[in-house]
């Protein structure tokens, strides 16, 4: 398969792992390892608290689509839009 065709396929059907079989809550628990138990961040990692839910979604989608080398871009590559929306619902429902 030509590289260009593969690229189009990847855009149309982005690789993701979590859609049906994994609870989104389990993914979120892993996010807390860096972002803190209540997403409060610290001197080095920004807090998610000041972000509006829509901003969070937009940032996450940017990470997924970005080709830059940021660790968040690499970690989020496995998520699709549906996963991100579910994550946003969960996080912003519980954020204190």
């Amino acid at each position: 398969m030509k590289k260009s065709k593969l690229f189009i396929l990847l855009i149309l059907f982005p690789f993701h792992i979590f859609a049906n079989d994994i609870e989104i809550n389990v993914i979120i628990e892993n996010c807390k390892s860096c972002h803190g138990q209540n997403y409060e961040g610290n001197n080095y990692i920004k807090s998610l608290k000041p972000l509006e839910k829509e901003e969070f979604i937009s940032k996450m989608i940017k990470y997924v689509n970005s080709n830059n080398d940021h660790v968040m871009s690499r970690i989020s590559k496995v998520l699709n839009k549906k996963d991100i929306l579910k994550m946003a619902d969960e996080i912003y429902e519980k954020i204190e």
Partner: protein
Amino acid sequence: MKKLNNYRRNFLKNSSYFISSLLFSSIFKINTSYSKSKLKPRIIIVGFGIGGATCISYLLKFSKNFDIIVIEKNERIQTCPMSNLVIADIIPYSYISHDFDYMRLKNIKFLNSSVKTIYTSKKIIETEDSSKIDYDYLILSPGINFKNDIDGYNHKDRTIIPHCWNGTKDLFKFKKRLNDLEKKSTIIISAPDYPYRCPPAPYERASLLANFLKRKKKKFKILILDSKDSFTKKEIFLNEWRNYHKESIEWIPKSKGGKVTYFNKKENYVKTSNGSKFKADFINIIPNQKAADILTRSKLNGNKDWCDVNPMTFELKNFRNIFVVGDSIDAGDMPKSAFSANSQAKILATNLVNRIYEKDILSPVFLNTCYSFSSSKRAFSITSWYKLNKKKTRIVSLGSSTTKVDALSHQYYDETRQAYGWYENLVKTLYG
């Protein structure tokens, strides 16, 4: 079994249970009546390192419902993550040394002791002082043990340079020996074979020792004698060494005679598998590794180097209600890292609660992100998600990705900030 079922029924009937306090509240949909019954299942957690402390942080919400006992031999926790930075004088020792926040752990019994034996058939553990404590569920997060498979080397020998691979104060001894080096010296780091704790750490150590000695204006040569032919983040490390430590760090893989087979402490040299002899002023042997001693003593690892667990629950395959987490298990594709132990322990604790409350077991997903420093201003990472194979018997990687070798300086600097950010949130969550 009948007794156990009655016990569980009574516990479930009587337990205090508030849905809002549950870990993953959407998963729990039951309501049970509140009662002041003292009948509680007892969970013993051995080891308050990353794996054990993560389990505790998740079980804390249930500390009124369970009788939780923690057994930890140390009075403070010294983490292995970031310890190479302490060795290189980039951060102070206090950064990696943590007190226990007893206020936060107020509903938990804390024993400063170690476990001598586990009597699995009686569900009893015996501590160092010969106290015997029974358990319903036992979580073991005991770290690792070391092999003495290099002729002439004994990891318990207090007269040699310590390996500094187990979070002890030997680190000070290591630093002193490093500081005592003359103006011009040769250093050997012997890197172990897989699997071992923190795969990139021997190479991070070489980078940071070079960085430290350069700052001290000392001349040196570091030889990494490797029991492997490749290692994680290899291209990035090699690039860092080319750019910043040209000719002062040399990596010798196994295929070129890198595997150390003999150590002569009197004359300070090692021999490798092809008969080559390397003499040095500072020899840091990082030994091959295996599951912690308590697991072997209690015959829980079936004569294997690592414990076989069910990756859904982390329960030992042949021992019901005994769970092992962290570096002592065979975790499939997951490396032995603090991030991995943290990720595994979250699933262990959650699914243990699910089991006790007779709820469905969650299908796990794990994350590992492992940062390495090459200097105070440069770090890089490898990251991967993991899930279970179709048979749910093994943890498999979904593919890893690393920092690009040609990343810009500010990106390498940004990764140092991510690393500190991860570490500080981790220890804040676990140790307060």
